């Protein structure tokens, strides 16, 4: 009789423990997702002349777009880093102000909805850039002779 009672108690505690573990794991994940700020990290690896998929930033809000090229060339002059603060007026144009990659790091500021309009360079040789794709989207374009890799972070 005692064994039966113990087995029954064990049988009721196992599902309870499983429910508790599942609930906790869901809550931990949900909390992490909810508390993470509005920041997206996008990696790219583009062949020569290739474009990334169009990226749509959030509308009517300033978006910090910062990018870096990570590949190191033979002479070590391939990487770069730059950023712009970008505004999308939905259906009309993209507007931006920022700093080109080294060297020299000149100011870049404009507004456009013309496909191909340059926004900011990501590499030192100024061959890989973020450019306007449509009035609502931008792309990363690799204008160099080889494959280039890097990443772009959007914060809004």
């Amino acid at each position, binding site marked *: 009789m005692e064994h039966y009672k113990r087995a029954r108690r064990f049988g009721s505690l196992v599902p309870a423990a499983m429910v508790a573990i599942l609930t906790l794991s869901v*809550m931990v*994940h*949900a909390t992490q997702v909810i508390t*993470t700020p509005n920041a*997206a990290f*996008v990696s790219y690896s583009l062949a020569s002349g290739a474009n990334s*998929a169009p*990226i*749509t930033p959030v509308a009517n809000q300033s978006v910090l777009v910062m990018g870096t090229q990570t590949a190191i060339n033979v002479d070590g002059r391939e990487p770069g880093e730059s950023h712009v603060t970008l505004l999308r007026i939905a259906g009309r144009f993209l507007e931006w102000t920022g700093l080109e990659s080294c060297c020299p790091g000149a100011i870049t500021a404009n507004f456009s909805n013309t496909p191909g309009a340059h926004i900011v360079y990501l590499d030192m040789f100024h061959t890989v850039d973020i450019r306007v794709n449509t009035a609502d989207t931008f792309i990363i374009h690799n204008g160099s002779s080889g494959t280039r890799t890097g990443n772009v972070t*959007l914060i809004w």
Partner: protein
Amino acid sequence: MKPLVKNKRNGRRVWLGLLLWVALAAGLLVQAFAPHLKIQNNKFVIPPSLLSGGKEVRPDEMIARERRMQALSGILTLGSGLGLAFYYRHVLFPKSASKGE
């Protein structure tokens, strides 16, 4: 008359239990079908496969969707988990429950 009232109560209890289990299952399902964006250095990582495809990428919508689904999943799972703990309190804590009665 008394057995009828008791039957009604039991019926309600069974439905409540079923509802709690369904809510838990729904919470887990929502969790399973969430986009599951990776988080690295306090940033959402957009899968590189999306960027190499030709389709438009909307990070703000992806993140908002992930947040909505995680919040819904969290509310359903936590609510039903606590509800189930209360529902089965007599089974889980037999001594303390009998003291209270």
